[in-house]
């Protein structure tokens, strides 16, 4: 480090281009959005510049309270299911051979990259009356008539778990694969059984990583926009759906922007919390 500090491998001006691009197309849009969130709503569809807290005051309404309650409880449920399923999955995965790991990661990445619209369509087909599991249950004699399981809260949470699971595995993968295998080995040598080594050694060592992953999956599912519309009923719409609804269909940009600023603050706080939790333990 000391020898290289004389001349770094890259010149200073190299930072100018990315700084300019990110400032212009990322910071400036945020600035404008902040300004719009305190602007006055113009009934003709846009807004007039002004400074008022009206849009933020609407957060105190029962409507907003209900939207928040739905968003948070749906995402919390999905995040809890995802992490509970993904943690043992990741531990087993990281102990496999390189080739098997690569193949499984390809499947996970493909599922993660899949458009929400395709996932929503696939799941609604799977849960539909004519082509879905209802047919299978009917054929097995479990139910009298094939039926549809969508739209429903169950379908929505299934969908959120579908997008959240690969994400949870990928977030857990680095800390889990870095866990020293000798710790587990030592516990086994001392006579701990498989499940005891798992719950007594692996889980406590990765507590921070698990909490961090839980928060990140929560933020990730909170951002889901299409699944609540495709798989849920309108009472299951989340904050993301309402932001778009206000901005595009209700022509109330200031209120949409205010909700968006609120969501951003919540997400930033949570992401910060997650990185603290991840640093505290496990991510050695």
């Amino acid at each position, binding site marked *: 480090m000391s020898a290289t500090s004389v001349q770094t491998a*890259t010149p200073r001006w190299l930072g100018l281009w990315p700084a300019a691009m990110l400032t212009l197309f990322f910071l400036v849009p945020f600035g404008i959005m902040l300004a719009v969130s305190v602007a006055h709503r113009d009934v003709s569809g846009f807004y007039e510049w002004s400074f008022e807290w009206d849009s933020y005051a609407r957060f105190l309404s029962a409507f907003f309270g209900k939207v928040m309650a739905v968003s948070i409880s749906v995402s919390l449920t999905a995040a809890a299911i995802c992490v509970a399923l993904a943690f043992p*999955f990741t531990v087993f*995965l990281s102990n496999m051979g390189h*080739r098997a790991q690569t193949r499984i990661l390809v499947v996970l990445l493909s599922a993660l990259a*899949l458009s929400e619209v395709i996932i929503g369509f696939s799941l609604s087909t799977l849960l539909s009356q004519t082509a879905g599991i209802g047919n299978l249950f009917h054929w097995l004699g479990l139910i009298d008539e094939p039926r549809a399981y969508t739209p429903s809260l169950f379908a929505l949470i299934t969908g959120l778990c579908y997008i959240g699971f690969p994400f949870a595995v990928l977030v857990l993968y680095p800390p889990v694969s870095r866990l020293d295998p000798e710790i587990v080995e030592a516990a086994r040598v001392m006579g701990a059984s498989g499940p005891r080594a798992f719950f007594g050694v692996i889980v406590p060592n990765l507590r921070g990583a698990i909490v961090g992953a839980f928060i990140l999956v929560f933020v990730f599912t909170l951002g889901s926009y299409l699944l609540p519309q495709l798989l849920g009923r309108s009472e299951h719409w989340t904050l993301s759906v309402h932001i778009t609804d206000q901005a595009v269909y209700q022509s109330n940009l200031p209120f949409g922007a205010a909700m968006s600023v609120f*969501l951003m603050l919540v*997400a930033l706080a949570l992401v910060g919390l997650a990185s603290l939790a991840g640093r505290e333990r496990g991510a050695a």
Partner: protein
Amino acid sequence: MTRALKTTYVLVILALLLAPLVIVAAVSLNGPQSLRFPPVDPSLRWYGELFRQSEWLVPLRHSLVIAACAAALAVAIALPLALYVWERRGIAAKALTGMGLAPFALPPVISALGFMIFWMTLGGYGRIYATIISHGIFLVTLPLVTISLGLKGIDRSLIEAARVMGAGRWGVFRTVILPLLIPYMVSGYAFAFVLSLNEYIIAYMVAGFTVETLPIKIFNALRYGYTPILAVVSVIFAALSALIFGLIGRFGNLPRLLGAERSQHD
């Protein structure tokens, strides 16, 4: 737990992830215009239909053009950013890294609304270049992460050696750093390409009514009822993602790209 039980657990979950796609693949083979499982009159008719109907071909072309350009833009921003941040520790480096990571860490609807208001104010709303730039900025994180990983793996002594032999900064970059970074740039490009192809909310809010991408087209078509073409498009998209990630896995070190440090090639 025994080895067999662990493998079963992993396989059951993978099967659940694949189940909806298997159903959709089967549904795409329906002969008549209906969604039935098992398929009625299996045929590949709708696969041909996709490439004949311009209402599907135009969004397909939009999606490909946007993904190809946006991923290139993301790499063009991420490469100098990663090089600048490499070996630097000041506030500027921290702020730049933060800006590079933030768009992806936040719920996408926030960036989408920000971009929408931005382009409305500046006048690019509804244009394809607005979608391309928005996607490019949104996806900077992916090549940034892969290229930074590549830089971390570069052996300092190689650079010292090149310098001792008389290479200047540009020479070192061209002959040592760049060749070592290319695989990471390619995988960063591929990640960004696939995600842009599948991205909905930003494309929709920036130019959804004029520049229809494939995910937007699928969503719009869903409202008018099901046709097997929807299943065909889903199958093609899933296959394309799997192919691209499969290629990265085949020619690169996917576990390392995703953060595992121990895993080596067999």
